[in-house]
């Protein structure tokens, strides 16, 4: 270890002179290079996406027809819980941090992130957290079965798996906070000459705002799960009604984190889409400044809407009304964004390569998710639909066709820059169309199931729900297996795709396309770019 430390000191003292990356595992273990760390984040995310996806297919296989088919109900509960935790904290968030690591320094003209060693630590913390989450399936009692929201009192009563989950959440939170500190510090302090805040690419702006959100709410989640831990082991009763505590209080604290968390997972997606649509429309982004202000507005509003997740707990009518109207207000800045993306495409010289297909898919499907969110914002409607499959359909339209589609779009868009090689366009388009069809067949019927009253988080259901559940499961398997095409395409591109050009996409105009070759050299900029 001391050798490694010495090597790094030498590395920094001589300003990265004379050598590229070290070979073998040590390159990845000790790396402080933002591109290496970004790559590791993306692969970690890809692996967790497969793990979480496998759990989802387990859930859908069980729900293919009524009755208990494959697993006992407790294991089903564990699958839904860990699927949610893995996808939120293990797949979506690390993927966006991976994008930030790769792109933020390149897009603002910085040499690297501000705190490269902390960057390395942020990534490697994910591994024990992931192992704790996965390992919780192996302990007596099985993995957490409370849902990803970790609600008491169930969470207080379960076995050691809960402690493992709480520790994993703490570690993931610490990793996210360190990553956010790095991103904010890099953006505020290391921009190239001439790169003013209002010249930054939208992706950088969305991440700057997202990182502030993370710093504001991740400690809130950490506080909540710390109190869960002390309730479980140190005799406190914060959330334990038997000891005078209040389980509803946990809901308030959790969702004060949880709703901004939704935007933490979607604002970087907005940033990616805001890079891709102008590139393929061959026009500058329509309403750049309004996009920035809309992003900031969404972030600020996200702090005052948490109550819409808990309309059924018996808040005062005035509270319900406040949260309802505040939630509806978010549609305004979101509408600005949708309007601007469409206006960017209007009369553009558009082509529809795979990144653009995913971006347009995002636009259509995320809007459906947004509208079903508006439906759920209406208190009397939500009281009827609460905890039904309508909610499951809504948030999957936001997080799968929103966040995940944007991740896919971003990987296809920047893969030529990252790897220096061009992916197979035919396979990319096949992946898109199978994903689009599979996703909609899987999740659109869940609106009908929810409206008909099917509750979520159950392994068995009444006969009248059978047909749409069968369709939903068929769609889920189409969607799930079509992702293998994506992984095959990415790996075969890296191993031997056709050589990519510096500016692979004609309309792309951020620094990584205009100033850097493909693939980007190990040390990004030899001299600081000057932006005029």
């Amino acid at each position, binding site marked *: 270890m001391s050798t490694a430390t010495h090597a790094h000191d030498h590395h920094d003292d001589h300003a990265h002179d004379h050598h590229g990356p070290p070979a073998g595992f040590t390159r990845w273990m000790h790396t402080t290079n933002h591109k290496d760390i970004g790559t590791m984040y993306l692969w970690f995310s890809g692996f967790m996406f497969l793990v979480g996806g496998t759990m989802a297919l387990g859930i859908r296989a069980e729900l293919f027809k009524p009755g208990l088919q494959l697993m006992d109900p407790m294991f089903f509960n564990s699958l839904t819980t860990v699927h949610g935790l893995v996808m939120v904290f293990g797949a979506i968030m690390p993927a966006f941090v991976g994008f930030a690591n790769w792109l933020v320094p390149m897009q603002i003209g910085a040499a690297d992130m501000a705190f490269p060693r902390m960057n390395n630590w942020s990534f490697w913390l994910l591994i024990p957290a992931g192992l704790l989450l996965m390992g919780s399936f192996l302990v007596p009692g099985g993995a957490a079965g409370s849902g990803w929201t970790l609600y008491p009192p169930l969470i207080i009563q379960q076995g050691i798996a809960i402690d493992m989950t709480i520790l994993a959440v703490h570690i993931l939170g610490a990793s996210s*906070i360190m990553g956010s500190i790095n991103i904010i*510090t890099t953006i505020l302090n290391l921009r190239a000459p001439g790169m003013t805040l209002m010249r930054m690419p939208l992706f950088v702006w969305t991440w700057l705002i997202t990182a502030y959100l993370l710093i504001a709410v991740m400690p809130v989640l950490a506080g909540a799960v710390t109190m869960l831990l002390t309730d479980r082991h140190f005799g406190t009763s914060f959330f334990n009604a038997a000891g005078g505590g209040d389980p509803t209080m946990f809901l308030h604290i959790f969702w004060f984190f949880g709703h901004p968390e939704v935007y933490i997972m979607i604002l970087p997606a907005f940033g990616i889409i805001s890079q891709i649509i102008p590139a393929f429309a061959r026009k500058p982004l329509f309403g750049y400044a309004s996009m920035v202000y809309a992003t900031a507005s969404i972030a600020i509003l996200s702090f005052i809407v948490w109550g819409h997740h808990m309309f059924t707990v018996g808040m005062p009518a005035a509270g319900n009304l406040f949260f309802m109207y505040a939630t509806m207000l978010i549609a305004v800045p979101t509408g600005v964004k949708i309007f601007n993306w469409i206006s960017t495409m209007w009369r553009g010289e558009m082509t529809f390569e795979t990144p653009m297909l995913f971006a347009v898919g995002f636009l259509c499907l995320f809007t459906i998710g947004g509208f079903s969110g508006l439906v759920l914002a209406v208190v009397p409607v939500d009281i009827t639909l609460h905890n039904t499959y309508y909610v499951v359909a809504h948030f999957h339209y936001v997080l799968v066709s929103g966040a995940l589609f944007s991740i896919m779009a971003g990987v296809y868009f920047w893969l030529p820059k990252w790897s220096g090689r061009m992916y197979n366009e035919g396979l990319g388009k096949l992946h898109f169309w199978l994903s689009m069809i599979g996703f909609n067949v899987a999740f659109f019927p869940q609106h009908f199931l929810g409206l008909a009253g099917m509750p979520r988080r159950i392994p068995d259901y009444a006969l009248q729900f059978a047909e749409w559940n069968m369709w939903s499961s068929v769609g889920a398997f189409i969607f799930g297996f079509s992702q293998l095409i994506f992984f095959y395409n990415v790996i075969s591109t890296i191993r031997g795709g056709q050589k990519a050009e510096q500016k692979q996409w004609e309309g792309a105009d951020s620094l990584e396309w205009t100033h850097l070759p493909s693939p980007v050299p190990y040390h990004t900029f030899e001299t*600081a770019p000057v932006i005029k």
Partner: protein
Amino acid sequence: VTQNHKPTPAQRKQALITGIVLAVMALAVYGVVVLKYVTNPT
């Protein structure tokens, strides 16, 4: 490859200050949440 583009000493100092301020912010939020409920559990 020679890497001439690196943060200036002033940028490094400013970055360190920014990082410390942000870390204190995060710890403060955690502290406020926990202390609020420790001092007044309901």
